[in-house]
């Protein structure tokens, strides 16, 4: 796991932006991962069926958004007034975003589920 270290003080803290960016990447990844997991597991799909007319998509989207916002709030509280090595945060956020985009692509999900 990449360690995110603090860098020397900067007049303008980038911690809150780093928190927003990383949380967004995580939210996108959570969305993709939940979509694939719900597609592969009937019990999880049933558990994520929050609103029957919409089906499991309702739970996938709701849980992913909740995870995104909780992650954002926690990181924002932790990194308030801090200046981080933004390049590492950015790389991790883009990795999560790319994985999230890939997991929403049906052939990738099917590949992971062995179909």
């Amino acid at each position, binding site marked *: 796991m990449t360690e995110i270290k603090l860098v020397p003080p900067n007049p303008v803290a980038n911690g809150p932006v780093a928190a927003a960016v990383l949380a967004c990447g995580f939210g996108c990844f959570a969305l993709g991962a939940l979509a694939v997991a719900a597609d592969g597991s009937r019990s999880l799909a049933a558990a994520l069926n929050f609103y029957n007319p919409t089906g499991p998509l309702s739970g996938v989207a709701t849980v992913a958004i909740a995870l995104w916002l909780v992650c954002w709030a926690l990181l924002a509280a932790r990194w308030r007034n801090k200046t981080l090595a*933004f390049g590492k945060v*950015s790389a991790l956020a883009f990795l999560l*975003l790319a994985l999230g985009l890939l997991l929403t692509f049906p052939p990738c999900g099917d590949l992971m589920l062995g179909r």
Partner: protein
Amino acid sequence: MEITQRELVTMIHGMLFGGFFLLALFGALVLLLDRFNPDRIAADAASMKPAPRWQTIYLIAMVTLGWAAVISGAYIIYPWYRAIAPPGADLALYPKFLLTAHPTTAGWHNFGMEWKEHVAWIAPMAGTMVAWVMLRHRAAWNAHRSVRSTVLGFVAAAFLAAAIAGGWGAMINKKAPVQGGQSIQLMGSTR
């Protein structure tokens, strides 16, 4: 000239919310690229002014359109699209079943809709983050080039996700339109 209630709501979802969200994302991309200009960054950093009022309204409207598109899509249109067709029903009123009934059209659902229904959510999430950074953390934008590059990358990803969702939505609705509900007369009949 008539339109059904479901067709009207689908148009509002796709052409008003989704279409304008896509346009707004492209506008945001151009806006952010313009703000890479070193002279503009220096002037903005020196003035310490908050975002201009029009940018605040623009970015909030962009985010609102994005969330309106995905929420109306998932909770109003999608239930009409995926409703289970009773035996012997006219499949024209059940788009998912109309598409999956034939191997030649099943891919529109199994590939297109399966992709669209999930990837769409990435766009408003990324758009919200971008708007929040541009409105609340302009100082960090001006001070760190890596912040500018990252935020720009997320706008591009949001645009890509919205374009995929919008493109598939338009094509699927052309192949198997969501229809039904009360008829609404838009204009008197003409000869």
